[in-house]
């Protein structure tokens, strides 16, 4: 492998295709001394992380050379491997993990999604001092959970340079069956004879469906440029890597199809706001190569199965800055866990997930080879691999979908007034307050679905104090509202007699819907504020809406949304009504490439204090046009609906543009914790808070 990769160095000019596809044999170049693999079950081949299990583990962090694109670059490996070794641990065990730093700078490892003592959480400057060069830090913690998690550096940009690995905690009850065949997760064309797992994991004692194969599918992104220099580029030109900017030919094509006025109106608002409708990701295939299990698309990572097998795929998004839309064309995916925690099985054909999120998926392939396809949210590239009955097989590789513009919902939030809580609706604050919008003269009503704007007031018996007089839609040019369908507005049925003022007995039973911007959001750090957020969870997000209608997927194609996820019975144990509500706004300024919470970057912030074991509601309100995967360390994020119904336990919650979403948490572990957007460039620019859990 070494010789092959060196041969590829000769090609000094990298063709575009190779950059996107990567090298077939790309990956770690330098061979590590054998002693490093003492705890590993096998040496690292490309795309196959070694598996380490047990309760005493040694990890060594060291610089290594890699070649994913034809260029040899420095990367950060653990035990010589990228991805880092897969750790298979056991629920209830106390593990001791010694991490030795052989880099020239400080390092750290954070155990993503694991509940533990805060001093073991691995965030330098919050939980501990970091691991200085040449030193060894001993992590020790008891595993109080099971499922699919991962680990990564929390120092600088080391995660983006290769420091990430899978962390699987096996449930104590079924551990015996698992340990009999630990090779299964890293079998890649090496160990075929050991692959007969038909007897393993009949989860009779659990409600989980049985499966015969178990693979980690860890998605990541690699940049030949140092991540810090990528950030410096974004700081100077935030649209640097966007190759989907609106163009003149697109405009003329729209004008031909939809008419000049419609084509014009489609663009007016974006231009007035100085926002890009294609600002879907800050980085793209122009700078990133997308990896699946550390393997480029050309390398075609392959997971083997026998016809009739059910395969468990543990999808982990370990990318620094990339949302993936994952599907296996022709196959149904049964999602059985989210962020490591079991969910009631839900059948889908595709799901989107951001950095930090994990999904366990079962699939029973009905073909001998099928493609694992993970296109990036901005549609500039993809990671891919194959599930096959024999090595060397492959199936058709789909095309990337066309780029879809962000919609009015992404910019303005809720356009559907029927979903609004009219009881609490304060229309006086209902103005679409965007920093640069002088008068919204050119608001694009052509895209506004008036049919769905159902002012059905039959159920509005609780309308108290609704003051429309101050309703400031601030839409100077709303002449196009003629088509608004008021016919369904049944005034007769509006029972004014019932307009009482009954206060709900539990004021925090539901998340508050009154938008409250922080005063620090009214400065240069914030380019947009959403006053009428959307609270629905059933939106798959830009690029995944109406795929069948757009002719991109077959009929019946189902994309997972947050609304589809329900924790399995017993997972959501804390049913208390929250005692406290914390509202936090996700903010930014794309032009300045500044990211913050409540308009304050980390350096200007103060910690969020949470009382030990108190049930606390957190409202995340997205005042930006990007989706942010918000990861809270040290405690669960129990997602709830806008009505306050507990849905699903997560550790990373993706918040869509103009969305207002809430979760409940019970901080069971004292100490200081990190809380941040898991897009590394957003995190590093300050979209980061410290949490103090105090007694």
């Amino acid at each position, binding site marked *: 492998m070494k010789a092959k990769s060196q041969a590829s160095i000769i090609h000094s000019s990298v063709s575009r295709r190779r950059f996107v596809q990567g090298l077939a044999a790309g990956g770690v170049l330098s061979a590590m001394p054998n002693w490093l693999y003492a705890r590993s079950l096998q040496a690292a081949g490309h795309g196959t992380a070694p598996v380490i299990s047990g309760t005493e583990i040694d990890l060594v962090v060291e610089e290594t050379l890699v070649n994913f694109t034809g260029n040899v670059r420095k990367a950060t490996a653990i035990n010589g491997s990228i991805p880092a070794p897969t750790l298979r641990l056991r629920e209830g065990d106390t593990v001791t993990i010694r991490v030795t730093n052989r880099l020239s700078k400080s390092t750290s490892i954070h155990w993503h999604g694991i509940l533990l003592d805060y001093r073991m959480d691995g965030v330098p400057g919050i939980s501990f001092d*970091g691991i200085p060069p040449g030193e060894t830090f001993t992590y020790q913690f008891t595993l109080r959970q099971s499922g699919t998690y991962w680990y990564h550096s929390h120092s600088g940009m080391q995660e983006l340079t290769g420091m990430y690995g899978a962390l699987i905690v096996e449930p104590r009850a079924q551990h015996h069956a698992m340990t009999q065949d630990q090779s299964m997760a890293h079998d890649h064309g090496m160990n075929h004879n050991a692959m007969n797992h038909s007897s393993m994991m009949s989860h009779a004692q659990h409600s989980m469906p049985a499966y015969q194969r178990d693979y980690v599918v860890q998605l990541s992104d690699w940049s030949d440029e140092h991540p810090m220099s990528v950030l410096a580029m974004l700081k100077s030109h935030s649209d640097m890597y966007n190759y989907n900017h609106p163009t*003149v030919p697109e405009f003329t094509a729209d004008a031909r199809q939809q008419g000049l006025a419609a084509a014009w109106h489609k663009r007016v608002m974006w231009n007035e706001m100085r926002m890009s409708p294609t600002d879907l990701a800050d980085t793209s295939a122009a700078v990133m190569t997308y990896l699946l299990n550390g393997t480029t698309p050309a390398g075609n990572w392959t997971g083997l199965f026998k016809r009739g097998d059910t395969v468990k795929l543990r999808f982990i998004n370990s990318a620094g800055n990339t949302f993936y839309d994952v599907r296996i064309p022709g196959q149904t995916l049964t999602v059985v866990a989210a962020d490591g925690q079991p969910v009631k099985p839900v059948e889908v054909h595709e799901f989107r997930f951001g950095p930090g999120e994990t999904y366990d998926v079962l699939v029973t392939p009905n073909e001998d080879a099928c493609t694992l396809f993970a296109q990036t949210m901005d549609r500039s590239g993809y990671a891919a691999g194959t599930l096959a009955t024999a090595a060397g097989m492959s199936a058709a590789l789909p095309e990337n979908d066309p780029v879809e513009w962000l919609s009015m919902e992404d910019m303005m939030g809720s356009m559907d007034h029927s979903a609004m809580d009219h009881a609490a609706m304060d229309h006086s604050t209902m103005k679409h307050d965007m920093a640069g919008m002088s008068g919204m003269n050119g608001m694009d009503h052509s895209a506004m679905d008036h049919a769905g704007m159902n002012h059905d007031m039959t159920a509005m018996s609780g309308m108290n104090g609704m003051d429309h007089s101050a309703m400031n839609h601030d839409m100077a040019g709303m002449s196009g509202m003629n088509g608004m369908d008021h016919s369904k507005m049944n005034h007769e049925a509006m029972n004014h007699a019932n307009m009482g003022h009954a206060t709900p007995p539990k004021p925090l039973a539901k998340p508050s819907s009154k938008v409250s911007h922080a005063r620090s959001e009214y400065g240069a*750090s914030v380019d947009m504020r959403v006053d009428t957020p959307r609270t629905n969870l059933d939106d798959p997000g830009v690029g995944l809406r109406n795929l069948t209608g757009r002719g991109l997927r077959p009929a019946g194609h189902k994309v997972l949304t947050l609304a589809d996820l329900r924790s399995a019975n017993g997972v959501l144990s804390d049913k208390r009504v929250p005692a406290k509500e914390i509202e936090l706004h996700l903010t930014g300024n794309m032009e300045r490439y500044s990211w913050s919470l409540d308009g304050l970057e980390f*350096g200007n912030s103060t910690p969020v204090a949470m009382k030990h074991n108190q049930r606390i509601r957190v409202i995340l309100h997205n005042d930006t046009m990007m989706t942010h995967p918000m990861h809270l360390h040290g405690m669960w994020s129990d997602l709830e609906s806008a009505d306050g119904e507990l849905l699903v336990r997560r550790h990373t919650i993706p918040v869509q543009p103009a969305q207002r979403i809430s979760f409940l948490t019970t901080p069971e572990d004292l100490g*200081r914790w990190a809380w941040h957007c898991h897009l590394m460039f957003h995190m590093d620019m300050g979209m980061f808070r410290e949490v*103090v859990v105090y007694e």
Partner: protein
Amino acid sequence: MNKILLTSLCLLTTLPLTSVRANTEDASGGRDPHAHSNGFTLTSGPYSMPAPRQLVLADEHHFGSVIVDRLEYQPDNEFSEYELNAWYGTTWNRLLLSSEGEVEDGEFSSETDLLWQHALTAFWDTRLGIRLDQASEGENQQWLAAGISGLAPWWIESSAMLYLNDNGQLAFTLSGEHELLFTQRLLLNSQLELSGYGKDDQQQAQAAGLAQVRAGIRLRYDLSRHFGPYAGIDWKYSLGENADYLRQAGEPTDNAEFVVGLHFWF
């Protein structure tokens, strides 16, 4: 005219000073972003690590960039011109070097602004500093400089600057720049700049009022996001007595020139 300009200059000069904390503390009556801190800070309160704070993210880092907007040549006149902007600093406060210059018949002249640029609102910055004019003929001049710059709706990079020299002369420039994309790499860059003076100064060949309108269109092909050659037309039109001064010196007052050049940054 002069009084209005002087007042404006004073106002602009005070803007950055009063807005230093605009990005963190605005009295707009919103929610207190520190309401849930319980009085704790990043370096105090339970479980805090001892000061100084170890965790410093990129929001407190300094970044920088050098952007050569135009490095161009007029083949007909054997005339070279450049415009560059270099900055260093944080998101909110930057040191900005903004320079334009030309070489004609081996003679070099330039206008260089050295400015403190401060983020005022989401899209606008204030600028305060000095300008040094190095003239090929006449004497060099030093100016105090103040103004605003930013991104206007429709993606127009704009700036409005006022300058005051020790003769009490005021100068102003207003400029706008826009890029229209035909493809992801081929674009039409349009620039418009108006400049003028507050009062007559015969010695420096300056007359009160609008002195020059300058417009340019350049068709550029970005070979990469860092590097793009272009060709275009640069048009300069002088007005009023300022045009007379140029005529006396034998300079053209209304000329459109074909230019070729490079745009690059790092």
